[in-house]
């Protein structure tokens, strides 16, 4: 019982980090059908910017998050304009994989050229440093903060997609891009806005999740596969799917690492193979 209680908060926190970062990729893959392996690279840029803002500029934690998110979106604009636009919807997976791997290499190289090849600290504010008393046991306050961020992100996205004008256009573009275009929805604008949203969410997740997925020079490559796997297990374009997949895979990974640490990611990938084999379009995905 003690073990279960020890595993659960960590699994939940890890799952929420995966969710916060992956949901942007999931929306992008659902809408633009782009297998964006460079998604982790944008999370990494967010981490680097936040670290720079906190350590060198000395701003407060919330401001650093804001700088990271907005900065990453600005950095991503040329990539969207010059490269991603060419591969929306049309291209085959192979082209997308290679282009986005190329972008990842490029970003990793440039980021390390600018910020130096050491891992970057993202110091937490005092409020999040200590333990938090749940009544029956103590857990690190940061874990709670991460879980809270995940919940807020999920609810906000659900509201955005289900309740707003933008959400309506987004869903129309996802379901049938050509028809949406014919009905007067400017799909290119929807795509660009969604790309910015995806990148911003990646940066946000990269910063708040830095305790669990530390920001280091090869971050973008190390977690490249993880985020893609989460999305495909959940089903591209589905918020509930991404949430379920993140929590499930977070649980599989954390449990595996607690109970059989020497096996590394073995259980994570066993879970992936089983789920993808049974649900090829993801837990909550739809066949296209």
């Amino acid at each position, binding site marked *: 019982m003690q073990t279960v209680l020890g595993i659960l908060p960590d699994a939940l926190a890890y799952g929420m980090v995966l969710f916060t970062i992956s949901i942007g990729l999931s929306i992008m893959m659902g809408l633009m059908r782009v297998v964006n392996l460079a998604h982790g690279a944008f999370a990494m840029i967010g981490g680097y910017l936040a670290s720079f803002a906190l350590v060198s500029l000395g701003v407060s934690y919330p401001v650093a998050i804001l700088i990271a998110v907005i900065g990453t979106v600005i950095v991503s604009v040329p990539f969207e304009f010059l490269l991603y636009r060419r591969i929306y919807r049309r291209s085959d997976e192979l082209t997308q994989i290679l282009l986005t791997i190329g972008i990842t290499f*490029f970003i*990793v190289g440039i980021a*390390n050229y600018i910020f130096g090849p050491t891992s970057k600290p993202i110091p937490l504010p005092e409020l999040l440093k200590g333990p938090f008393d749940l009544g029956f046991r103590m857990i690190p306050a940061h874990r709670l903060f991460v879980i809270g961020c995940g919940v807020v992100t999920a609810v906000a996205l659900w509201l955005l997609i289900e309740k707003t004008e933008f959400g309506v256009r987004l869903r129309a573009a996802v379901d049938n891009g050509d028809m949406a275009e014919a009905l007067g929805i400017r799909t290119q604008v929807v795509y660009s806005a969604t790309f910015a949203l995806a990148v911003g969410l990646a940066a946000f997740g990269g910063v708040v999740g830095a305790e669990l997925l530390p920001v280091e020079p090869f971050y973008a490559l190390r977690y490249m*596969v993880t985020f893609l796997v989460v999305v495909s297990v959940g089903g591209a374009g589905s918020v509930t799917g991404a949430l379920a997949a993140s929590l499930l895979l977070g649980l599989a990974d954390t449990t595996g690492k607690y109970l059989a640490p020497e096996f590394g990611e*073995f259980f994570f*990938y066993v879970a992936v193979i089983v789920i993808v084999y049974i649900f090829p379009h993801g837990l909550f995905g739809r066949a296209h």
Partner: protein
Amino acid sequence: MTTTSDTAGPVATAGLRNDLMAAAIIAGLGAIGYFVFPDDLAFLTRVIGLAFLVISLDLVTGYCGVATLGHAALFGVAAYAAGNAALAGITDPIAMLLVGAVAGTCTGLVSGLLVTRFRGLPQLVLSIAFGQLVAALANKLSSITGGSDGLAGISPGPVFGVFNFDMFGRTGYVFSVAVLLIAMVALLRFARSPFSLMCRAIKDDTLRARMIGVRVYPRLVIMYCVAGAVAGLGGALTAINTGVVGLDSVGFERSAEALIMLILGGAGNLWGALIGAILFELFHHYVSAASPFHWMILVGLLLIVVVLFFPRGLVNEVVRRIEDFRQARAVR
């Protein structure tokens, strides 16, 4: 591995001429490497080992349209198998190659059964998951893989009982070129066989292939087994030549790099795979000396440029230009 595709007389001679030309080209390239870069033979031998991996990847990606990011598993398992065989006393290099090919085929079978079941994203993710699973196992089963230290102490015996492996890597190099030559000629024939042509048909239009009665899944699995054998030869060669097998031989980076090499050279063309491997490794060799991060910037840019401007790969692009030129002249 050869199938009876060339039954008619003239076609058979054309096929034979192609085979001889292929053999001559590889022997020529090998000789250039031997005499022009006598101090870099170990590097060139490494390139040949990797070229097998890329050619193997071409069989499944270029011929069957299977997008995979876990292909290094086939290569790595074979390398470990050959290494273990050597440690167990089977030190004859040719026997080690056979062990590698068999191990590669078995891994290819399992991988193929799993990966070719679906198309698109599920396929990609299953291939990644399979590769990562093998990598995690290689790390865990340190009794047979040496874990993160790698499997060391592999010392192959002389080739045919005569030619000892020397410290300059000359024997290893000549042996590798010979294996490459034989494998390449066999595979070029295989690529012209009805079986491979049908795989191309499946790649171009799976639904139509199914409609005319082609059983898609078994074919793709068989192709995966062939690819496994080829990757296995490469893995075994690497184990023979370097004497060690490390975790990097099953890693995700190895798989991704192989895919980059293939696209650089040109998928769907065995020469493209070979040239891509050579070009990429040369590029790596000369650029990465500066700094690993400068290397990444350059390789990223290279990849972006190739995907945008030469989507069919350098070799295919050159071939197309030559064809265009010929046709233009013929018209005139």
